């Protein structure tokens, strides 16, 4: 898994950088215009961390190494991002790290466990739930869809694909919502009609997971073909 997670983080950094202006524009509409800037700074710092980080010691279990990487990424986000999204995404990564450290029958199962833990961690820290027009409106549906796909026998590509689709739909579904958490809540009725920036970035991160998992699957099938 370690390789996959590292690929994901690097790819996510690139995609966050590209999407930063549009994320910031969403935040200008109902927040304070820094969400893209914040995440770009955070993922940039993750890449720097990856570049400097020594490879895990020989013999480290993959799950432990993966958890360690996610934990470092979470700490990096907490130290570099600030704002609401820094602690929230940072905590999500820390919780995800805790989840992947355990025993899982497959990478797909580990992914679902991590996504669920991450989502729950955000909700707990943010004292927030689905339907409040936050990143949780992408993450909760994604976690449910991923679990359903896994339960139906889906492999990593299928499970991450399900998460991606549900997160994308969830992010779009924030448009008509009235915000009750985060800065958008200050706007009252005027928050309606805009897509939540955090839900959008969450959907983006999950799209990159699916992309990386899909590419890995293609590689693997290419290799066995």
């Amino acid at each position, binding site marked *: 898994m370690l390789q996959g997670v590292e690929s994901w983080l690097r790819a996510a950094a690139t995609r966050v950088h590209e999407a930063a202006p549009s994320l*910031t524009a969403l935040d*200008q*509409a109902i*927040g*304070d*215009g*820094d969400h893209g*800037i*914040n995440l770009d*700074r955070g993922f940039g710092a993750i890449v720097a961390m990856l570049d400097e980080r020594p490879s895990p010691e020989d013999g480290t279990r993959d799950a432990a190494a993966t958890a360690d990487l996610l934990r470092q990424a979470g700490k990096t986000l*907490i*130290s*570099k*991002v*600030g*704002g*609401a*999204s*820094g*602690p*929230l995404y940072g905590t999500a990564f820390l919780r995800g790290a805790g989840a992947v450290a355990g025993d899982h029958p497959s990478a797909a199962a580990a992914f679902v466990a991590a996504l669920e833990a991450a989502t729950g961690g955000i909700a707990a*820290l*943010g004292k927030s739930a689905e339907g409040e027009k936050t990143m949780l409106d992408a993450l909760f549906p994604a976690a449910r869809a991923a679990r359903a796909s896994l339960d139906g026998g889906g492999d990593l590509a299928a499970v991450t694909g399900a998460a991606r689709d549900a997160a994308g739909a969830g992010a779009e579904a924030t448009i008509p919502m009235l915000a*009750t*958490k*985060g*800065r958008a*809540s*200050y*706007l*009252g009725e*005027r928050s309606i009609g805009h897509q939540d920036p955090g839900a959008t970035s969450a959907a983006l991160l999950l799209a990159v997971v699916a992309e990386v998992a899909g590419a890995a699957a293609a590689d693997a099938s290419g290799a066995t073909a």
Partner: protein
Amino acid sequence: MAANAPSHSMKKLINNVDDLVPESLAGLQAAHPDLVRIDAANNVVIRKDAPRQGKVGLISGGGSGHEPMHGGYVGLGMLDAACAGNVFTSPVPDQMEAATRAVDGGKGVLHIVKNYTGDVLNFEMAAELVAGEIEVKSVVTNDDVAVQDSLYTAGRRGVGVTVLLEKIVGARAEAGASLDEVAATAEKVNGQGRSMGLALTSCIVPAAGTPTFQIGDDEVEVGIGIHGEPGRRREKLRPVDEMAEWLVTPIVQDLGLKAGDSVLAFVNGMGGTPLIELYTAFNSVNKILGGQGIKIGRSLVGNYITSLEMAGFSVTLLRLDDELTKLWDAPVHTPALRWGV
């Protein structure tokens, strides 16, 4: 584009966008070497003589772009340290941890936090980082009457009262009060103060490079916060006497002020509004309060908690009693507020 439409792209006195916060802090230190020093690794402004043994430490912090808040309030009788985040972005826990450690004089540290999700979460994480080592209490300001208070939402924003609280609580700490006492005064000030603001223009977050919102030549945003965001509603520009009513009336109602009550009246500029207008707005506020028999016991007029170069103003009223008046009048010596010394 109209012939004389001014620029809408970014025009600021900066070098690189990324260097703005550290360079501005370096300027603060260069201008006030007798008052503050800078922890440049953490973008923390620290009182020159911190930590002061036997004194409760007071720290605050938040996104940059609200100057002089908070770095301009570090000094005798006010803050011991201020953490500067990126523009409009709460600082990170490492910064508050560094600040807390730098100012602890053995009597504990009060965190003064404005009620925004990011600020609250990052300060909470910082408190956890020093848990068991330094006693930390927090006060969360939430004085913005534009937002309805509710247990089920993010709640009200912390705005103008934060400045008054830092001054008043700073005096209490300077006088040797315990952490509990200092925290109690902080809660009292937060409970007795309310604010509301409006914007005539937007502002440009440097890293974004464009105005946060668009607004017509004859429009104002009413019920704004301090992050360049649009407000609760949009209105047509009106005479300042009328616009002041929009702000004062909800505050007076929320505080339940009555004839005979005495308040500290604080008319604050959002950064781009000059004093000639702020004093005109203060005149409006004075007329409104006078008409209701509410006495202005103390006042503050100027750009003290800002949103970059935004034009507009906010009104804060703090119900005064003898204790708060005395603490307000106590000596303060910081880059932005100074008297009695």
